[in-house]
């Protein structure tokens, strides 16, 4: 049975990111940096109507613009558009300026429809305009019941009812979606900004009716995905088709404006929660009614509920009497897709807010309420570790009891994520040269998660070398296949694979060289015995070195200015486990990243749509607000190393409980709940009763 070394030299240590120097020097070439020979600039024309029938698209005027080499429609003939920003056509030209002019020249004849809805609460009304013809906007999942929730509430010592809402959140990776595509007689090569090179290759092949072997994706560096960059997307297929039409490579990257419209988002939630407990705090009854939107991807027409509209409830807790009803609501907006821990951050926010509200009603410390009701061993330990580091006992005060105008409050929340369910079909290869140099090639991708470095660390450990002696190549579908980077599964997929490659490599090397142990000091001597032929070794994922899930708890401390409503986060303590820590340095960065994304979700981020025009009002960084360096608090990370569980994943659990912990800290500070994310100064002031009611004229 394979097992990880017990006193590792590199594993669980701090190894610097091996692609760091490339990134800090500007040498790293991202998908948006590719400059293939004779490349053209590509751009997409989008619908300015949220609902319309497109009767014709005239590309001729665009083709006359100097520099334009190709213009295509997404779809020929009449068609419907169902959201503002839906793709209509695309052009390729020698300059960005030519493309901008070309887009303005395209003539679209459309019959806009006044029947559209961009508000999910309105969208679920029975007389709301239908997003999809002949299909209800609402797709309700069948209610789940357990026990008898109606009588159970009567048995409770304390019952709370709350309404907790979370907005549509946009991924907004720093590098937008897009690719460079080069389609020649020899096949199609794509350099896509993707977190799944195979998904791009397969998607392009399918859409363009090519053999898989004719399509290749190369993604050496990409600027973030967070779940939104799987598959080629409409833009990827357009880039390829433009390349074919123009007979030149085409780089088509989306603008920041486009990112808010059509490449995915996290569904919203509107959670009505009724929660009751017995006198000793044991949860006894739970009633949950939630709806949210996944844009046009929700509702009955598309089988609803995709991408995290349906929430796990009561999340990580249990109650003997429950009733859960959920529905997804279609609106005329871009479809949702997976976004870092789909469904968990909103589920956590709703449930953990309810827990704190219940604790307040019971007059109980909310940490105690959790320890009472959360039987998970790992989280129990994490709460205790975190509480001590955080200073919970000294910091926790009754809700609203903080004196002064700027009130301090604390909160906590827990997470669970089925992380690390590795991809069993991961493969890889290593080429060992007679001079001792070694190159690993895996068809996975590094999103900034540290994939390359993980490979180098595991290989160095197994071979007795140093990580900087390992050359790592990823991001090419010509390499042995690996999983897309989603679900926090990459680390658990590649680590056992590299282990296997190394074991086999050592085996073969030892056999060929006659040296019994080819590791470490003997490595170069053993390799020299290869003579003139490098050794290429294939390996794959093997059992016994990785598991799932991961847990985690977070504590937060905030200051709330009760006169201006401004929330300032003072501190977050994040206690996380991911089985065997492979690289501590990059793991911490993942956790920082998850916390900061959760902070944005809690305080700043929401996609805003205009009911009257159906457009997205904040398709930019000015009014879709991301946490800045001055908004980010001190973050203390406690990593619970569990080598006996093997390698798990960390990317997603790290972002699950943050908004909940922050929301609870705000409620603790001001003594009243702001149940709606983002928690803006406006909402804080309203919760404090300071905002005068507005007379509707």
């Amino acid at each position, binding site marked *: 049975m394979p097992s990880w070394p017990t006193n590792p030299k590199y594993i669980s240590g701090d190894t*610097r*990111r091996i692609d*760091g*120097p490339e*990134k*800090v*020097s*500007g*040498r790293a070439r*991202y998908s*948006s*940096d590719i*400059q293939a020979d004779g490349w053209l600039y590509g751009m997409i024309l989008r619908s300015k109507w949220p609902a319309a029938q497109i009767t014709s698209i005239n590309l001729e005027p665009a083709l006359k613009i100097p520099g334009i080499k190709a213009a295509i429609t997404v779809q020929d003939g009449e068609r419907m558009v169902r959201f503002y920003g839906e793709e209509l056509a695309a052009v390729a030209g020698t*300059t*960005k*300026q030519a493309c901008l002019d070309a887009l303005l020249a395209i003539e679209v004849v459309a019959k806009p429809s006044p029947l559209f809805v961009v508000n999910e609460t309105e969208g679920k009304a029975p007389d709301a305009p239908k997003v999809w013809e002949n299909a209800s906007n609402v797709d309700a999942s069948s209610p789940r019941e357990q026990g008898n929730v109606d009588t159970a509430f009567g048995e409770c010592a304390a019952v709370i009812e709350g309404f907790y809402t979370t907005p549509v959140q946009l991924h*907004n*990776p*720093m*590098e937008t979606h897009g690719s460079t595509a080069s389609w020649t007689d020899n096949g199609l090569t794509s350099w896509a900004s993707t977190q799944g090179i195979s998904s791009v290759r397969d998607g392009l092949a399918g859409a363009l009716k090519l053999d898989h072997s004719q399509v290749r994706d190369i993604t050496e*560096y*990409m*600027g*973030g995905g967070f779940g939104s960059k799987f598959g080629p997307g409409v833009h990827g297929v357009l880039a390829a088709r433009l390349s074919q039409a123009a007979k030149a490579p085409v780089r088509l*990257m989306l*603008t*920041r404006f486009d990112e808010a419209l059509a490449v995915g988002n996290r569904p919203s939630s509107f959670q009505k929660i009724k929660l009751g407990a017995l006198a000793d705090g044991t949860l006894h009854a739970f009633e949950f009614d939630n709806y949210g939107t996944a844009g046009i991807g929700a509702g009955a027409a598309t089988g609803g509920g995709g991408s995290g509209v349906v929430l796990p409830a009561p999340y990580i807790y249990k109650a003997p009497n429950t009733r859960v009803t959920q529905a997804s609501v279609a609106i005329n907006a871009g479809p949702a897709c997976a976004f870092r821990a789909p469904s968990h951050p909103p589920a956590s926010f709703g449930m953990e807010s309810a827990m704190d509200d219940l604790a307040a009603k019971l007059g109980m410390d909310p940490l105690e309420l959790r320890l009472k009701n959360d039987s998970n061993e*790992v989280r129990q330990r994490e709460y205790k*570790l975190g509480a001590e*580091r955080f200073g919970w006992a000294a910091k926790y005060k009754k809700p609203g009891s903080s004196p002064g105008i700027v009130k301090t409050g604390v909160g906590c929340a827990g997470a669970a994520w089925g992380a690390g369910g590795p991809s069993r079909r991961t493969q890889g290869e290593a080429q060992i040269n007679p001079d001792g140099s070694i190159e690993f090639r895996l068809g996975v991708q590094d*999103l*900034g998660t*540290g994939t390359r470095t993980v490979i180098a660390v595991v290989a160095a450990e197994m071979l007795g070398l140093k990580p900087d002696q390992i050359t790592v190549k990823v991001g090419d579908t010509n390499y042995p296949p690996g999983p897309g980077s989603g679900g926090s599964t990459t680390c658990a997929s590649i680590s056992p694979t590299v282990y296997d490659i190394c074991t086999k490599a050592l085996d073969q090397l030892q056999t060929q060289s006659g040296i019994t142990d080819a590791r470490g000091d003997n490595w170069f001597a053993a390799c020299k015995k290869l003579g003139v032929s490098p050794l290429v070794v294939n390996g794959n994922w093997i059992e016994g070195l990785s598991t799932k899930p991961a847990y985690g708890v977070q504590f937060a401390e905030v200051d709330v200015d009760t006169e201006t409503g401004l929330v300032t986060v003072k501190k977050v303590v994040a206690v996380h*486990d991911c089985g065997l820590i492979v690289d*501590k*340095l*990059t793991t*911490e*960065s*993942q956790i*920082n*990243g998850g*916390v900061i*994304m959760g902070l944005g979700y809690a305080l700043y981020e929401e996609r805003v749509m205009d009911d009257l025009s159906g457009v997205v009002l904040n398709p*930019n*960084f*000015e009014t879709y607000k*991301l*946490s*800045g*360096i*001055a908004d*980010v608090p*001190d973050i*203390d*990370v406690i*990593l*619970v*190393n*569990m080598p006996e569980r093997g390698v798990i994943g960390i990317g997603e659990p790290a972002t699950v409980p943050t908004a909940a912990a922050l929301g609870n800290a705000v409620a603790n500070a001001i003594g009243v709940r702001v149940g709606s994310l983002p928690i803006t100064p406006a909402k804080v002031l309203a919760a404090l009763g300071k905002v005068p009611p507005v007379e509707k004229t």
Partner: protein
Amino acid sequence: MKKPEPEKFGAHSRRTFLKSLGTVAATAATAQVESVAAELEQANAEKVIGPNAVPVTLKVNGKFLKLMLEPRVTLLDALRNYSSLTGAKEGCDRASCGACTVMLDDLPIYSCQKLAIEAQGHEITTIEGLAQNGKLTNVQQAFVDKDALMCGYCTPGFVMSVTALLKKNPSPTTDDVKHACAGNLCRCGTQPRILEAALAAAGVAVNRTTKTEVIDYA
């Protein structure tokens, strides 16, 4: 500080200018020739150019880039799409994310909101111009050492902002770093380590903003 000097599009000395007038100059009354020359020199400097492409010379990282650009081309566009200098990134094209930060003389600016023609006559420094002979600068090395980067797309912009800060203020406080980097966004969440890296590069005692403890479970 801006100097009130006329911008020179292909500067002429008065002599070459007058020479170019040929017989016209010869026939101009001597008494008026200086004011005419001055007027014509002004007209030359105030010449209307574009909208088609015009010659633009940019001094980037000490080297001259001679390009043909329409006036509406931004400096970022010029770097990324008319030269191979893709280090400065396009994150928003609206002066709101900092991924395109370069230095114009000593000042960090958003290259996406600067016309390329207006960047002439300045020393432009991009991320590619920092490391000398392949050796990373203190700031770049600090970013690598402290893991102040993840996907790396925002990194060139942050490195430029921090580099510019340390040039002006070699001993910054935490607040100084936050102030200098307020205009740079990161989606991966590297901000705490950027703060650490900036202070480390400055040799300022670092009050670690992230503390990690590893607890063995068993």
